[in-house]
């Protein structure tokens, strides 16, 4: 969580400095993705939104590779093709992020169905935000998960704000987002998303359930989006400033720290030390990444690469176009 927080802080700064075009942070939501990740086994597949980078950081994915992608530099694993933070890592169980909302939720169900069809025990986890549950992909995901008893964990991260619309618009007359699962015969849980240990416990339960072929679970993580939606957003335009200062449900990092300190497993001094170590490691990764360039300076992915990878084999018309482009 602390690493994710420090990573976000440095990358937000980098965006302001013009090193990249765009960034999205996780302030307040760190426990959701970081704790969930700890409940998964190697080979399990997440179908994330743009706000679960904790799945990568808590999964040991190299920060420098994430930063290369953010900077769209010459070492970007995705060759400059994607907007910043739209990571992909098949190896670490992180499906390629799309800009279209909700599409991944039903894809997660399909992946889980395929695992079951193959007599595998790997499970999938779909992720979606409160606002995006209004998309039809959410409905289709629940129908198919229910009909096929797919080994999938379906996660709704309710951070209360879909850019500038409050959760009520998507929730409608439903009391909670979790309640939606019951209409499909899918067991549903609602958890304090800022309680790291609660998230972990719920995740373990649902993941185990899926792996034992007992079917899907819908989980609503109640949390709060402290920061802006992205670097292109200004929350003061639509919500009172003291709302984020009040920090509904509290800082997940402080909550876990206090809990561990009370149990004698941690201390304020160790926390300060950890903060420093974490920031050092993030800055070291950033220095390494910046050697390979940033969006408008230094090494860039090649223009020739823009034409690659549209198909497994480049068709004649693309070869002609690449030739026309002079690369």
């Amino acid at each position, binding site marked *: 969580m602390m690493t994710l927080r420090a990573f976000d802080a440095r990358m937000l700064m980098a965006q302001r400095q013009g090193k990249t075009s765009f960034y999205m942070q996780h302030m307040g939501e760190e426990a959701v993705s970081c704790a969930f990740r700890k409940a998964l086994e190697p080979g399990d597949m997440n179908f994330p939104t743009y706000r679960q980078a904790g799945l990568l950081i808590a999964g040991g994915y190299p920060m420098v590779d994430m930063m290369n992608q953010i900077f769209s530099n010459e070492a970007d694993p995705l060759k400059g093709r994607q907007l910043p933070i739209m990571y992909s890592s*098949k190896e670490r169980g992180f499906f390629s992020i799309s800009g279209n909302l909700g599409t991944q939720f039903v894809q997660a169900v399909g992946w889980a169905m395929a*695992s079951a069809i193959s007599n595998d025990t790997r499970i999938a986890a779909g992720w979606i935000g409160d606002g995006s549950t209004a998309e039809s992909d959410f409905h289709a995901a629940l129908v198919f998960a229910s009909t096929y008893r797919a080994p999938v964990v379906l996660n709704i991260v309710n951070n209360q704000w879909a850019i500038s619309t409050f959760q009520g618009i998507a929730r409608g007359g439903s009391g909670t987002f979790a309640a939606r699962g019951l209409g499909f015969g899918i067991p549903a849980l609602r958890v304090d998303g800022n309680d790291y240990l609660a998230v972990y416990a719920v995740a373990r339960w649902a993941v185990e359930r899926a792996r034992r072929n007992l079917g899907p679970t819908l989980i609503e993580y109640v949390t709060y989006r402290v920061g802006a939606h992205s670097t292109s957003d200004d929350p003061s335009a639509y919500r009172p400033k003291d709302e984020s200062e009040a920090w509904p449900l509290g800082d997940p990092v402080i909550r876990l720290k206090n809990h561990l300190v009370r149990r004698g497993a941690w201390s304020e001094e160790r926390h300060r030390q950890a903060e420093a170590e974490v920031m050092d490691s993030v800055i070291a990764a950033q220095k390494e990444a910046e050697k390979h360039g940033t969006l408008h300076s230094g090494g860039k992915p090649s223009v020739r690469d823009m034409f690659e990878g549209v198909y497994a084999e480049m068709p004649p018309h693309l070869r002609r176009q690449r030739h026309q482009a002079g690369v």
Partner: protein
Amino acid sequence: MSAISGGVFRCTAGLQQKYGRTRCFDTPISELGIVGTAIGMAAYGLKPCVEVQFADYVYPAYDQIVSEAARIRYRSNGQFTCPIVIRMPSGGGIFGGQTHSQSPEALFTHVCGLKVVVPSNPRDAKGLLIAAIDDPDPVIFFEPKRLYNGPFDGHHERPVTPWSRHPLGEVDAGHFTVPLGKAEVRRKGDSVTVLAYGTMVYVAEAAAEETGIDAEIIDLRTLLPLDLDCIVESVRKTGRCVVVHEATLTSGFGAELAALVQEHCFYHLEAPVGRVTGWDTPYPHAQEWDYFPGPARVGEALVRAMEA
């Protein structure tokens, strides 16, 4: 639709009984869900072949097809791929009206990352389908429904000749493929090149016979990626070109073909590139034969091309 009976057109009849319920199964009525879960299955490593009951119903799946299936390889730099096939019956000539007669291929040829295939006969249908399933990229596979039971040249007043009595109805029972991206010259000729696919291949053949014009008829088979070499070679030989398709005129695939022909064959052309297509109206019911581009309309276009 029912895996037990084989679907509306019985295309999948017997498959579930033979291969079991984990290899051939029914789905809830959600094209979005059908394609979305197929994409997830492909990401896992399977090769899903899904059916949309009529091409007219594909639109709920369009976001998953365009925003996801077509781009997953590119945006993940090949970590994830999408080797799915989406089969759907397309085209008219059946009094199906606007929700059972559409030919929406141009909505897919415009999407980079997809492949688009339209067979015109059983032998190509089998070979192209196997090639499509083998293909590592997403393939949109249109099946002209008017051709399920036999060729159709637009003469609706005549009885249908079943495929069993047609040379292209003879299909080898073994495994074979027809390559994607390769057109087939169905009728060699010297006077005018006709670019066609699906049912219109037979309509063009009838028009050539009835006008006596020595047309070279090309069955495109794959629209994307297109076999441009075959087209260019033919038009440079004949100097005239008519494009025919059932789909509506404006921004139909014929527009792309006409643009390519004039770009690559301009100095060989003796006449403007003609297009004979569906009108820019929803596909009507009672006026089926006024809408469907039959051999009379295609014949007129051939004559116009020769007289220019």
